[in-house]
């Protein structure tokens, strides 16, 4: 009997099903579990109430990132509620034998940055975390997605969750990206085409030359944003770029184990005749540097375009108008030249070394616009160290910028890094929801290049003009 053609997603999913429940979800085994201070305390409380332990503590990794300050991390955390959550993470980890990278630890950083950076994230794995951008890890050919706290409790207590198998979608982007067009622009473009609910119920595979030619960091940016079009997650087949990235990292397999792993990883690709429930194909040449103008990540467009009119939106028109109203924008206006107040570069979307290199490539030899406040926040201590070693910090300092310490920061504004009400921020993070970066804050999502161009000119600027 010939084997049925399967997709990359099928191969990884099917290898993790412990049991299929009739007319119900699959009992799905999880290889790696990341936890952080915000979504784990109630899960540990649940374990305590049920009087059960952590089944495989070596499969869970804890890092503090969501509410941590990005200055003076050596001092006690000022906010008592945040301090309490950090303490709970530390104590719960210690009690259950989970490795914990707390504030100040050399490997501390944003959960989706430190996982790959330390070789914890590997192809063919299943990875979950109580944070929706867990989809980042899909860049390695892993099935990775965000879960709720009840599910965190399930993974801690049984290393499994209950999941119905999602449908399959493939998004192809072919051709060569133009000047100034980055991975972030590719993902913002795809989301603008599919809308924020366009991939709900699906798991996405990204394919085509654009992704094949992309660095691991770029692939992480793309997979990270999969959730913003409603997808459970996104993944890219592992290839030589993936293997080169992983080799030698602390938790990566070594020696004979490496050879074995590599042989397996090479089988992780979609068979030629496998089918998807839905498929889209885009052309790289159609993608410009992108920027969002509204209050969800699907409301983005090429930076030189005008804000679309809501004419044909039917029942969605009221929501569209509410959104533009919140942003203080109007239909048919140009985004170029709009004055901005803040720039945020960081987050698990664009807080890795390549992002800071890109930012520095534009600000080099220029000066920060006087009225702009810039928060430059590395995704981890490792990234912070690289910024210093590579001389990027000198470029930044020269241009009037300063560097903060690692953490989620203004991506979700749980700490003090909040954009004030009414102010405009060009952000390299992933969400422009109302109030996401602080009550009343107005977020324009963009790439590090667009953020850099805005930081030095003080207005929305096409980065290609400064390249």
């Amino acid at each position, binding site marked *: 009997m010939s084997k049925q053609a399967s997709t990359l997603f099928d191969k990884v999913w099917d290898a993790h099903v*412990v*049991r299929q*429940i*009739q*007319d*119900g*979800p699959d*009992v799905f*085994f999880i*290889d790696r579990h990341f936890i952080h201070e*915000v*979504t784990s*305390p*109630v899960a540990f409380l649940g374990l305590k*109430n*049920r009087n059960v332990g952590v*089944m495989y503590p070596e499969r869970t990794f804890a890092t503090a990132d*969501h*509410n941590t300050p990005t200055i003076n991390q050596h001092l006690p955390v000022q*906010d008592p*509620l945040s301090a*309490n*959550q950090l303490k*709970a993470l530390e104590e719960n980890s210690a009690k259950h034998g989970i490795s914990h990278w707390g504030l100040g630890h050399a490997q501390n950083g944003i959960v989706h940055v430190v996982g790959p950076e330390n070789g914890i994230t*590997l192809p*063919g794995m299943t990875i979950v975390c109580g944070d*929706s951008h867990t989809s980042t890890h899909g860049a390695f050919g892993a099935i990775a997605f*965000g*879960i*709720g*706290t*009840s*599910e965190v*409790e*399930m993974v801690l*207590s*049984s*290393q*499994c969750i*209950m999941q119905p198998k*999602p449908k399959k979608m493939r998004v192809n982007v072919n051709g060569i990206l133009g000047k100034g067009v980055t991975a972030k622009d590719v993902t913002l473009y795809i989301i603008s085409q599919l809308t*924020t*609910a366009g991939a*709900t*119920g699906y798991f996405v595979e990204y394919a085509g030359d654009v992704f094949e030619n992309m660095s691991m960091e770029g692939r992480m940016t793309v997979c990270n944003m999969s959730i913003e079009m*409603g997808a*459970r997650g996104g993944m890219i087949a592992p290839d030589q770029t993936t293997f080169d990235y992983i080799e030698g990292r602390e938790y990566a397999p070594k020696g004979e184990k490496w050879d*074995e792993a590599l042989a397996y990883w090479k089988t992780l690709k979609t068979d030629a005749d496998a089918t998807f429930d839905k498929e889209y194909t885009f052309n790289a040449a159609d993608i410009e540097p992108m920027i969002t103008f509204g209050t*969800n990540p699907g409301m983005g467009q090429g930076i030189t375009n005008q804000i679309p009119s809501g004419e044909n939106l039917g*029942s*969605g028109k*009221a*929501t569209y108008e*509410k959104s533009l109203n919140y942003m203080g924008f109007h239909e048919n206006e140009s985004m170029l030249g709009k004055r901005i107040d803040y720039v945020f570069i960081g987050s698990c979307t664009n807080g890795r070394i390549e992002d800071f290199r890109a930012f520095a490539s534009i600000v080099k030899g220029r000066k920060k616009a006087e009225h702009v406040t810039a928060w430059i926040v590395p995704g981890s201590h490792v990234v912070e160290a690289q910024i210093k070693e590579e001389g990027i910090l000198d470029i930044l300092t020269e241009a009037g910028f300063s560097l903060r310490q690692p953490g989620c920061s203004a991506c*979700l504004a*749980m700490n003090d890094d909040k954009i004030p009400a009414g102010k405009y921020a060009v952000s390299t993070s992933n*969400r422009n*929801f109302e109030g*996401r970066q602080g009550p*009343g804050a107005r977020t324009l999502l963009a790439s590090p290049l667009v953020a850099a161009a805005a930081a030095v000119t003080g207005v929305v600027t096409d980065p290609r003009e400064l390249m």
Partner: protein
Amino acid sequence: MPKAVSRKPTYMAYDKFTTLKSTAVPLPIENVDTDQIIPARFLKATTREGFGDNLFRDWRYNGDDTPKADFVLNNPIYSGKILVGGHNFGSGSSREHAAWAIYDYGFRCVVSSFFADIFKGNSLNIGILPVQVSPEFLNKIFLAIEADPKAELEVNLEQQTISIVATGESESFDINGYKKHNMMNGFDDIDYLQAMKEDIQQFETQRIY
């Protein structure tokens, strides 16, 4: 305003859900994301109680904590255990706190023409029934509530139907059999998983990582 009910943080996950007949609160906004349902700055608790107070915080209150008169939760003519939202309800962050806030405020059922995946899963895990209806039926519900804020909806989980009591119009909804059984009996997944630990152990030994 519906009275906030606080649930105890015990492992008895939630009360059984069989039928629910109630007035409903209309929120005809699309793409309601979990950052609106519960803003991140209120996620600092280490227990799951009390989130209802901050449900839709920034739509519900001004910066100085005075209620915004035009927001539906501040309008005393609307109340009930059913929240009716626009298309793509619950997108964005995976925070289960969003579902806790809705539950803690007193809702047991959310109706929309489309739900974001993680929100839907989280809701089912904590005892809120997400009922997905057609856009046409959703519109009928909004119109019924507009005509009479005290219009009742009736949700029957066994039959998988939702109806507008006054007009008798009804539609059926989907839910997988396993989740339905759980909700109707107040069971949760963790008990199920605990009971199959040996299978899981067996499986684990074969993993390459």
